[in-house]
């Protein structure tokens, strides 16, 4: 691998030459960041180009092995790439659950055939993956899930219902937790399987949220056929994979709402909306709230950095992702409440081009789910209590 300085110079020049102008603007709408897959509609040619040139270098997944199409970069080189992208405000060329969740799981637990089949398609953004976890009666108590998966000799047959399946209506494939042994203890009879959702037996119904958007679906599975080669890891050992994936999900959700460097900060926004009097924000109560939030946000950022550094050096506590998920999502909810305070009544406009079709209100409402999805805040507090603090363990 080339040394970091050379890599930085080359990367800067390459990005300058290859990142199209529209892909350097802040991502505002959902569609502005490409999720890929067969059903994706590129908002313009530049979005398509940006995905393709980045994917060609493996830089949609810069730290994945090059043999499966990844960038093959180490942690330090990835850091430089991210810094150089941030410096020009380059958007992520691809955002997906393939990249953040099932990809890392397959690289760790998958068979060679699974890696060869799925990883290059994730890197290239060709397949959109969705996650089949929660069920109508098993949300927080995920391990109680009841979707059945029976061995039919040359294939598996899956029956049941999933809910809160993110963008199942846009997806191509699902990674799905199923019960393979109904008689075993609840954590011991679960497996993880992969299947194409574009097949008979899979029906999908979007759920309209309070935000007006439908990022989640109900997914009904009736006699869905699953190839036997698509079982990930060992049969009935799926809970370990589920835990691994949940950790990734917690980290992903916890770090959302960090905004990007080019987004207007809350203080900038407030100065614009409220104005300064003698150099001080004209609404002193709002000023205190914003400064308090900014301080907490810095504390959160430093903590994410510290926990990463501790993990790298073998220090630190396990279950740290629960702490970050809890703190990060509560912080993001507060950020959006503050944003309402800064913008005033216009933030609650629901329609009209002048109000970006209710974007502010819709985003604010969406954040209410952050402390529910991926394990509620209360579940994270349970994990901290038991696994870190050791509370309630009788002696």
């Amino acid at each position: 691998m080339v040394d970091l300085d050379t890599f930085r110079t080359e990367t800067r020049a390459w990005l300058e030459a290859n990142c199209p102008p529209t892909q350097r603007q802040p991502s505002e709408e959902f569609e502005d960041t490409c999720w890929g897959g067969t059903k994706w509609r590129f908002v313009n040619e530049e979005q398509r180009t940006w995905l393709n040139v980045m994917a060609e270098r493996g830089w949609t997944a810069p730290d994945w092995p090059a043999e499966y199409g990844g960038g093959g970069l180490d942690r330090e080189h990835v850091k430089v790439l991210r810094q150089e992208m941030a410096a020009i405000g380059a958007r992520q060329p691809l955002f997906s659950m393939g990249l953040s969740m099932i990809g890392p799981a397959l690289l760790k637990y998958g068979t060679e055939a699974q890696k060869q089949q799925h990883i290059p398609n994730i890197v290239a953004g060709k397949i959109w993956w969705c996650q089949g976890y929660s069920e109508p009666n098993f949300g927080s108590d995920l391990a109680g899930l009841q979707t059945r998966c029976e061995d039919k000799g040359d294939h598996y047959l899956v029956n049941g219902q999933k809910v809160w399946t993110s963008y199942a209506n846009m997806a191509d494939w699902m990674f799905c937790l199923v019960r393979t042994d109904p008689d075993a203890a609840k954590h011991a009879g679960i497996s993880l399987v992969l299947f194409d959702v574009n097949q008979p037996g899979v029906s999908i119904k979007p759920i309209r949220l309070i935000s007006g958007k439908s990022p989640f679906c109900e997914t009904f599975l009736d006699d869905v056929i699953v190839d036997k080669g698509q079982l990930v890891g060992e049969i009935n050992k799926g809970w370990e994979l589920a835990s691994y994936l949940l950790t990734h999900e917690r980290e992903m959700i916890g770090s959302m709402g960090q905004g990007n460097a080019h987004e207007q900060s809350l203080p900038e926004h407030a100065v614009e909306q409220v104005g300064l009097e003698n150099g001080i924000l004209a609404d002193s109560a709002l000023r205190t709230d914003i400064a308090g939030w900014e301080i907490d946000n810095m504390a959160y950022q430093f903590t994410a950095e510290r926990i990463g550094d501790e993990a790298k050096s073998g220090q630190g506590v396990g279950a740290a992702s629960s702490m970050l998920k809890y703190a990060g999502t509560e912080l993001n909810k507060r950020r959006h409440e503050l944003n309402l305070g800064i913008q005033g009544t216009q933030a609650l406009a629901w329609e009209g081009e002048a109000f970006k079709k209710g974007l502010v209100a819709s985003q604010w409402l969406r954040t209410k789910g952050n402390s529910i999805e991926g394990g509620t805040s209360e579940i994270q507090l349970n994990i901290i209590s038991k696994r870190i603090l050791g509370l309630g363990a009788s002696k």
Partner: protein
Amino acid sequence: MALVLNEEQSMLKESAKGFLQEHAPVEALRTLRDERDEVGYSKDLWQQMAELGWAGILIDEAHGGLDFGHVGMGQVMEENGRTLTASPLLSTAILGVSAISLAGNTEQKTALLPAIAEGKLVATLAVDSGSRHKPLNVGVTAISKGSGFTLSGEKRFVVDGHVADKLIVSARTSGREGDSEGITLFVIDSNAPGVDIERVIMADSFNSSIIRFADVKVAADAVLGELDKGAAALQQVLDIGNAYLSAELVGISQEVLERTVAYMNERKQYGALIGSYQSLQHRAAHLFSEIELAKSVVIKLLQSLDEGGDNVPLLASVAKAKVSEVATLATNEAVQLHGGIGMTDELEIGFFMKRARVAEQLLGDQRFHINRFAALNGY
């Protein structure tokens, strides 16, 4: 730089922990309080701490110190927060040393720093003139008289004032209260004629004092740093002081959390450990999360101090604001989760609560630093 301790820093932390827990646990502070000790700390203990090199952690090697850096000293202060050890570490080895190192000339450094490193000289910083931290309202005037100066006025809540040999005093040599221009730092003998020091017993049983200056005459060489331009160095010293108060407050918070969790796993009500009740578990878990956030801002600030980062003022206010909030929460929750026994003087939790509030107030509380943070960011 990775936000973790290196091997030497970890070793210092471990040795500080071992030493303080063996020689100066909270029980020692209780004894000093109950016996109304005139010094307010053990001189023998301070001598031992100096022999371990702690008095000189921030002093360069040329002046007899270890030059071990801020991250290292931060670990000692954090451990100090766990044991509430009374000593001149804050007044002398942190505030005094920083002021002399940052502002002093060669003669002053040579005269003062080696003596501090050996544990033979106690120095302190007299900055506030009232009950609220306002570093630009100095409360003491220094009028040029012949080749020297005459100081008059009053300083309040000066740490270790009544046992200090040297007082580092911010005084106004020109301009008006509130101006940053016109502040000068002086090093003054505590026994100089006209200096009256009154010890003030605080809730936390640590040393504090009121110092009155009545026409105190000092020579020109008492000026520490540049005439009229002392505010910049003073502000750096205050940022350093706040870094260590924050480190101490993290130690306090972590200690009371651990003690509270241990109690929750021991105390039974309705036939079950109170730690098995979810309503209490969640309060402890929330506190854990907040303390993790607090730890990160402190190590970030200490590293930035060692690197000479230009974001030190901002990070100092981030740290003091966040850590003060967390330490208040931690000590309040500790009392509440202990229940009635948490209200008793016999349990040590109360000592931590009292020290936390005093440390929070010193050099600016949470609200002071929220205001400063916003101002530094231009809003």
